[in-house]
């Protein structure tokens, strides 16, 4: 359903994606946390771009920097202790990092929006959910209360909340986890953003609900041509919806490829390890292979390739010097490993 007023405001705004539909261009992003114990380098040069209608999954363990990346793009990093120390985040050709906070705030919500892992704690407990969604329209669009409420109910129906009219008056704690996440999604898409960042949107939900939420996100994205950044540690979640996957490790993207290529044949030992650690029915009875060791302490990232202490391909070359750069190792795929070709070749033979 198109709203004429929305279309006008969108065309009238100065944010126009590039001719090829490029929305977001992140280059060499660096974030560090200055703590009492020292400086934790949470993100060390992250590059990616996002096009209209594209879904980019950022995959990684906890502490790999995927949520911090999202916060840095949104500009909601807790500062101090978090500081963006380098790089650019260009949205429709404008570097967001150079905008003053007041300008940047106008990007959040109407242009780039975000949903969080735990929708219960991400909704204000003292206000009815309908009121919270309506507030988006009232504050950003200047609607009056009853118009805003009508829009909110319509949006709640769009995210498939049964009995939306009655439920609009209910409070967050009166909803199930899946319904809460739908409400969070409704709030996030209320202003028709060009980019939606979903930070582990299904982690707190059970599996059947996970699938419904992912389907909803995919539908909404189709309908609105949003760019979607999906942050997750769950390989199962991304397989169906993502177009492209960026795997993060210790604040770096270690592999970036289209989803099919990456699943069919990973190009980085870490990705390979992740894929092998998914339990598979056809391998029942065999020991599940897990990646040994722990992710590095960000206060003291090992020299060389940060993954080398846990890597079965590691050679002397991996152990010191600069970390291997992200380089093209195949058609439209990138990996940051000295032995990416070996990993790929080995995978192709299996």
């Amino acid at each position, binding site marked *: *359903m*198109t*709203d*004429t007023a929305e279309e006008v405001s969108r065309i009238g705004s100065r944010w126009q994606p590039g001719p090829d539909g490029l929305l977001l261009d992140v280059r060499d992003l660096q974030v560090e946390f200055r703590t009492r114990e020292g400086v934790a380098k949470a993100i060390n040069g992250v590059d990616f771009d996002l096009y209209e209608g594209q879904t980019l999954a950022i995959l990684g363990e906890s502490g790999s920097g995927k949520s911090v990346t999202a916060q840095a793009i*949104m500009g*909601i990093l*807790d500062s101090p202790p978090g500081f963006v120390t380098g790089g650019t985040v260009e949205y429709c050709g404008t570097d967001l990092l150079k905008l003053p906070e007041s300008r940047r*705030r*106008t*990007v*959040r*919500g*109407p242009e780039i*929006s*975000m949903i*969080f892992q*735990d929708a219960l*704690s*991400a*909704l*204000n*407990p*003292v*206000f*009815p959910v*309908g*009121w919270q969604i*309506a*507030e*988006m329209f009232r*504050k*950003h669009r200047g609607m009056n*209360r*009853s118009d*805003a*409420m*009508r829009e909110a*109910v*319509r949006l709640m*129906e769009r995210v498939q909340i049964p009995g*939306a*009219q*009655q439920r*609009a*008056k209910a*409070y967050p*704690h009166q909803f199930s986890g899946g319904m809460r996440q739908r409400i*969070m999604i409704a*709030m*996030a898409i209320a*202003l028709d953003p060009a980019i939606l960042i979903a930070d582990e949107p299904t982690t707190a939900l059970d599996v059947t609900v996970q699938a419904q939420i992912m389907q909803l996100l995919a539908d909404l994205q189709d309908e609105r041509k949003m760019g979607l950044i999906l942050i997750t540690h769950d390989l199962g979640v991304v397989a169906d919806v993502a177009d492209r996957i960026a795997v993060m490790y210790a604040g770096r993207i270690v592999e970036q490829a289209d989803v099919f290529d990456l699943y069919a044949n990973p190009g980085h030992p870490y990705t390979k390890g992740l894929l092998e650690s998914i339990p598979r029915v056809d391998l029942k009875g065999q020991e599940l292979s897990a990646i040994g060791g722990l992710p590095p302490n960000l206060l003291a990232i090992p020299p060389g390739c940060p993954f080398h202490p846990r890597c079965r391909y590691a050679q002397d070359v991996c152990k010191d010097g600069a970390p291997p750069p992200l380089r093209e190792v195949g058609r439209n795929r990138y990996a940051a490993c000295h032995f990416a070709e070996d990993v790929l070749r080995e995978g192709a033979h299996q």
Partner: protein
Amino acid sequence: MTEAATEQSIAPVGDVPSASAGRSEWSAAWVELRRKPLFWVSAVLIVIFVAMAVAPQLFTHTDPRYANLADAFKKPSTHGPLFGMDRQGRSVYARTIYGARASLSVGLLATVATTILGMIMGLLAGFFGGWVDAILQRIGEIFFTIPLLLGGILFLYKFPTSVDAPLIVQVLKIVFVLALLGWPNIARLMRGAVLQVKPSDYVQAAKALGAKPGRIIFSHILPNALAPVIVVATINLGVYIAAEATLSFLGIGLQDPAISWGSDISDASGLGEITAAPHMLLFPSLFLSLTVLAFILLGDAVRDAFDPKLR
């Protein structure tokens, strides 16, 4: 799709809840309050006491300052002086009724002043943190270390109230000193609550959806940090009325022609009076306790009404 078609397609949605659900949190809290018996008990008590303060003539025709020494220490009785007579033969009933004005004004104004001042300071300290927090906290601690009564005595001795000053001036002076010394209590509480609420995901989420700092404070932090402040503020109301009593007892609070529960309680607390005429102590104390109780109950009911989880 045209505007009209859009309107039409959502028409069935539009006509039901918008009016009721569009209203704010206040109306929801009011609906909830109306259902609570405790709210009505406290509200009725408060209305009675406020009526006493505003129009004591409605409750008694006796002049509270009329003294007849022949009646001194007369016991309460149903067919004489209802609450008995005090040391100077003044009607305890009339004095208790007339005392509501000074006591309630001191209690309410001091509570409002400390709460507003404390909330602002606590919010600023908790929300902005850093050096703002450090400075506000140190200032608060300076006042915090001065005991309420000692500070009050020092201030009122330094700036004594003349006997001729109108009641409102006397009251405001006491309120000023109580607020000056009482706000750090509320500020600390508020700061703690804000620090607890600030890192929550919904504050982050509000930022991520483009909320301005003002809206984050007033829509997200304040409503979620208010509960402990309401409770403590209502309890403090009694403390302030009692502090006024003590200051008046020391002769530096309200000056004599002024009538307050506090000063009457002080008058009745002499060793001789307690044994000879316990009713002199009983009735003003009873009214004081009922007032404090009524406000505490109201505070409790209001706090519960604003917590959706208790609905």
